[in-house]
């Protein structure tokens, strides 16, 4: 009877402790603990929190991925300890730890060259307090003891998540937002043919350029780059009719392109419709133009007789992309018109460097 009463009281105390700790965990507040480290010294979590993040890892020598996690944590610890990362490992080897277990644990930690604190949870009280189900389990705690990250096991995805968490906490490059993958991406082969077309166009092989641009358009009718290029090729071959046909293809609403008016304006400028060209660009030019677009804009200005303004815009385009081959091509045309002989010579040399005849 006395034994039963004692057990009842003990159970009540354990349960109360568990309930309050479980409540804490539900509130995402970490439970402080005091455990002995592998050298037998007392260690209290609250007194050793990192300035930015404290990672608590529950591990064991028998745990499948414990070594991998310790290894990775050591790497992070080396990288970020000086800027506020604290790591503490808790070995949850078994319910009853033997001296031989300690020797084994120490050997493993030495083998992994672990330099952070290593504690032993001899009676698995902390293991229970944190409701650990799988080993290893990793818990990241803020300086105010809030649980900010938890990882049970060390799966590939878990590893990635933890890596992103650390990266974002310590400002690594991978935390930067990736390109929005839901945005339109051209068909891969279309992109390749379009690039081939561009290369041929750059070198003045208009026939091949046209052939590849057509292939790209056939593979992806929504891809704007080969359509724009085809318009440029047609204009260079003085095929205005074809250029206009292609332009109407480009102006379809299905084709998404930011500055559609610019190609239209460029085509007008090329075909002598200077006023219409200028009307189209008026009030529509923004800072977002890329080098090619800015060169086209400069060309439209030049054709309208605004030579100095045009030269300035060509200069801006060059700053955006010095390798953009359209810049010397279009500028030379404007300079010829304005009888700027020196600039014509300079551009002619640049064009030759692209292999254009």
């Amino acid at each position, binding site marked *: 009877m006395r034994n039963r009463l004692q057990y009842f009281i003990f159970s009540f105390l354990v*349960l109360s402790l568990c309930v309050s700790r479980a409540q804490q965990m539900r509130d995402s507040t970490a439970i402080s603990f005091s455990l002995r480290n592998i050298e037998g010294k007392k260690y209290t979590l609250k007194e050793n929190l990192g300035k930015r993040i404290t990672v608590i890892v529950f591990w064991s020598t028998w745990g*499948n991925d414990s070594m991998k996690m310790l290894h990775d944590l050591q790497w992070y610890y080396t990288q970020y300890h000086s800027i506020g990362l604290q790591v503490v490992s808790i070995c*949850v080897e078994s319910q009853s730890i033997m001296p031989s277990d300690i020797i084994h644990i120490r050997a493993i930690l030495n083998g992994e060259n672990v330099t952070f604190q290593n504690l032993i949870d001899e009676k*698995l009280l902390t293991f229970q307090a944190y409701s650990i189900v799988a080993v290893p389990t990793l818990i990241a705690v803020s300086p105010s003891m809030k649980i900010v990250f938890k990882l049970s096991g060390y799966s*590939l995805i878990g590893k990635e998540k933890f890596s992103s968490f650390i990266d974002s906490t310590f400002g690594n490059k991978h935390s930067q937002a990736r390109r929005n993958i839901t945005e339109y991406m051209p068909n891969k082969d279309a992109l390749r043919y379009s690039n081939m077309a561009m290369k041929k166009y750059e070198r003045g092989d208009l026939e091949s350029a046209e052939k590849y641009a057509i292939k790209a358009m056939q593979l992806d009718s929504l891809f704007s780059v080969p359509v724009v290029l085809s318009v440029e090729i047609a204009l260079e071959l003085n095929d205005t009719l074809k250029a206009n046909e292609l332009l109407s293809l480009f102006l379809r609403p299905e084709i998404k392109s930011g500055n559609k008016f610019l190609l239209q304006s460029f085509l007008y400028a090329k075909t002598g419709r200077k006023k219409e060209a200028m009307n189209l660009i008026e009030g529509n030019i923004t800072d977002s133009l890329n080098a090619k677009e800015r060169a086209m804009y400069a060309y439209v200005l030049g054709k309208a007789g605004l030579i100095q303004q045009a030269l300035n815009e060509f200069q801006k385009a060059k700053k955006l992309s010095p390798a953009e081959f359209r810049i010397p091509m279009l500028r030379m045309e404007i300079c010829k018109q304005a009888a700027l002989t020196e600039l014509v010579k300079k551009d002619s040399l640049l064009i030759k460097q692209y292999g254009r005849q």
Partner: protein
Amino acid sequence: MNIQRIYMVSVAIVICLRFTHSQQKQATQESCITAKCHATFGTEKFVHGPVAVGECKACHQPVQNEKHKFVPIKKAEDFCLKCHERLEKKGVVHAPVMSGDCTGCHNPHQSNQAYFMRKGPIAETCAKCHPQEAMRKKNVHAPVEDGDCLTCHKPHASEKPKLLSKSGNEVCFECHSDMEQNFTEAKHVHAPATDACVKCHNPHTTDTSPLLVKEQPDLCFDCHKNIKNHVDKSTVQHAALTVDNKCTNCHSPHESQIGKQLKDEPMKLCLTCHEHPINVAQSDKIGNIKELLSINKNVHGPIRDRDCSGCHDVHGSTNFRILKKYYPKEFYTSYSQVQYELCFGCHQQSLTQEMKTTTLTGFRDGDRNLHYLHVNKKTKGRTCRSCHETHASNNAKHIRDAVPFGQWMLPIKYEPTPNGGSCTPGCHARKEYSRFIPSSTNNKK
């Protein structure tokens, strides 16, 4: 005397002028391009300047006093350089350029091709020395298919090996610009891909798609020898390695946002096949895992982490269902720690070793460890599968709805309570357990 001298000089001038005139006349009259001779010259799309103006002697020097005999042209380059700039012979120089054999590739008279190329597409000219038969395997690189060798190579000289226009992968990225962007943005990049595309791809033609130098998985195994050894030793093979794209069914050979170069989250990849039942043997069928997971909300940890490889070795195994470690198929087994290697890779080993506990598990009656009670038996120890559904169930701790006993499925009727629970399986009558107030005495009654 003076008159005589003046007369003589005048005669000489007249003779000279007449001679010059006759020479000019002769030159015009002796143009090689006539309706009868060399009539086809000047008829093609591109005509070389000297031919166009009938200046054949610019290159062909007649042997003195011999009609229709010319000094043999030993080195074409000597004549070309009279008008054309000398090509820089730096770095890697194309053999004909080195030997000055410009006319090996260029027709010095006329051509229907740009740059006076001797034959149609550039490749036909190249084929004179570089046999094209070897370029016509099952899969051909687009520029090769189009006969456009100059997409990648320079015709005269280059600073880069193989007369490439750019070095290393840069030449590939000129067209495959998406790859370059992907490499820059990716978290994980396959090292050989960034080193050199040609480590895995043939830039011209191969019998293996996509232009691989070898079939998969042999190509991958050339470096990943450990995986090869593992696959060779496996008695239970994973079909994913042998069907469709083999290694690249799951791995991206270029770049990835997920470790191990995976194309997507591991479980998503698995469920692309395991979304329907799969027959593995005559009487062995793997169920529709996707469906199982969609109708059961309490999932096993690795599944919650969307990683089936927590338990399964995707490259093959010596254990059934390509499990990473041994896991008993049976309902009963004689207890030994080794029997539960798979589960005890993550879960506390002492769970089935300690008769009493207040910390190891919630499945205890007071301090009586019920895991130990069920599992740790010399005969008829219950295996994990007796009570737990390994993938998912609608009960806490993914406890089964029913116990698989032979061909029967005996309902467990598990009912959790805040401090314990009860079950009424076919194995025994209803039993309760409580972590707070032990129910053992009640159960015995």
